[in-house]
């Protein structure tokens, strides 16, 4: 009995770091047979959850982040003044919201500034919950990405469509051509579309919010 327990616990000890070493890769979706109708799942519980960034504990998560196919910007290079360190322990402090439309209209004005935004989630990182796209308050075709450190804040997929509040620093990222090609290739494969790598000739500039804290419904 005790020997078995010891084996179990030793096994569990080995499992803990191993979990952190997991690498993320977007699998190619397997489309199911054509269907027009299905029953949606039961509604989620109502309530509100607050998550605030804390000091990273999972060092191996850095490696996993680099391999996150859902997060093409993970390999992006922070541009200029935004490459400063962010204290994740500070979480949410601001009270006044900045409209997402204002940021998207003139992101340069907000570069390096800490802002609080809110909007419905229109896309979420499937594997790690490490990013979320919040819809603009004015234009239904625009959204602001909020990227957080892996494991610091985790956006559940069930938050899709619900209003999310996020606080962070506006930053400019430059996605290298190779990274962009890889991301677009995987995206096209997932959708069953063709992709020509030669069509990507220049790095892409992306504006996003480096998330420090978030508040969203359960």
């Amino acid at each position, binding site marked *: 009995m*005790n*020997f078995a*327990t*010891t084996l*179990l*616990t*030793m*096994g*569990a*000890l*080995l*499992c*803990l770091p*191993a*979990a952190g*070493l*997991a*690498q*993320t*890769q977007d*699998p190619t*979706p*397997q*489309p*199911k*047979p*054509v*269907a*027009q*109708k*299905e029953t*949606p*799942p039961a*509604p*989620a519980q109502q309530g509100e959850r607050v*998550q*605030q960034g*804390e000091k990273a*504990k999972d060092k191996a998560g850095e490696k*996993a982040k680099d*391999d996150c196919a859902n997060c093409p910007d993970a390999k992006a290079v922070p541009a200029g003044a935004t490459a400063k360190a962010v204290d994740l322990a500070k979480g949410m402090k601001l009270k006044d919201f900045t409209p997402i439309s204002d940021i998207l209209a003139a992101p340069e004005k907000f570069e390096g500034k800490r802002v609080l935004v809110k909007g*419905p*989630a*229109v*896309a979420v990182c*499937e*594997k*790690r919950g490490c990013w979320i796209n919040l*819809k603009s308050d004015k234009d*239904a*075709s625009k*959204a602001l990405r909020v990227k957080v450190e892996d*494991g610091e804040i*985790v956006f*559940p*997929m*069930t938050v*899709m*469509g*619900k209003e999310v509040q996020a606080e962070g620093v506006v930053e400019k990222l430059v996605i290298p051509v190779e990274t962009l090609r890889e991301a677009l290739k995987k995206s096209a494969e997932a959708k069953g579309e063709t992709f020509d790598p030669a069509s990507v000739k220049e790095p892409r500039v992306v504006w996003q919010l480096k998330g420090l804290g978030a508040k969203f419904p359960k």
Partner: protein
Amino acid sequence: MAGHNWRWWFHAIHRDVGYLCVGLVLIYSVSGIAVNHVADWNPNYAIAKVNGNIGAVAHGAEVDDALARAVLGRLDLSPEYLTLFQPGPHQLRIVRENHTIDVQLDTGAVRHEIVTPRPILHPANYLHLNHAKQIWTWVADAFAVALIVLAITGMFLLRGKQGITGRGLWLTAAGFAVPLFFLWLYL
């Protein structure tokens, strides 16, 4: 209680802490296996992706409630939704509760994505990966300390050939050798 030697105490501590830890050991172990293979599957959610076609949908430059209702009507779904998004010029995304519908308006191609949290793994991963933060962080720390206590007391439960001076020593050494070997191999 008085007069018991240290081995008796190790037995008692190992036994009781072991009982206390069974639940969390199972949760962390099962979750550990699940998230180790995150490259191959989604350990938190079952995501059903279903394709269909509703025929081309007349639309303007912007998406609106009327367009969403028309699409939902063709899909024979109730008109409720949480929000709309327009990923591209001829695209409409309708977000419902755990159900996202992407429509290519000019061709009528529809892609449903239905998300269902996995019943056991989702809460297990939530705890294991410490998404809860707050007080759970301290509970998880206490559990880690308990595992250390179990590992140390476990080594000294038996005496003689089966104990740490005999077979136990070799098995313990083998246990250390496994991670050391892979560190040597990969680093």
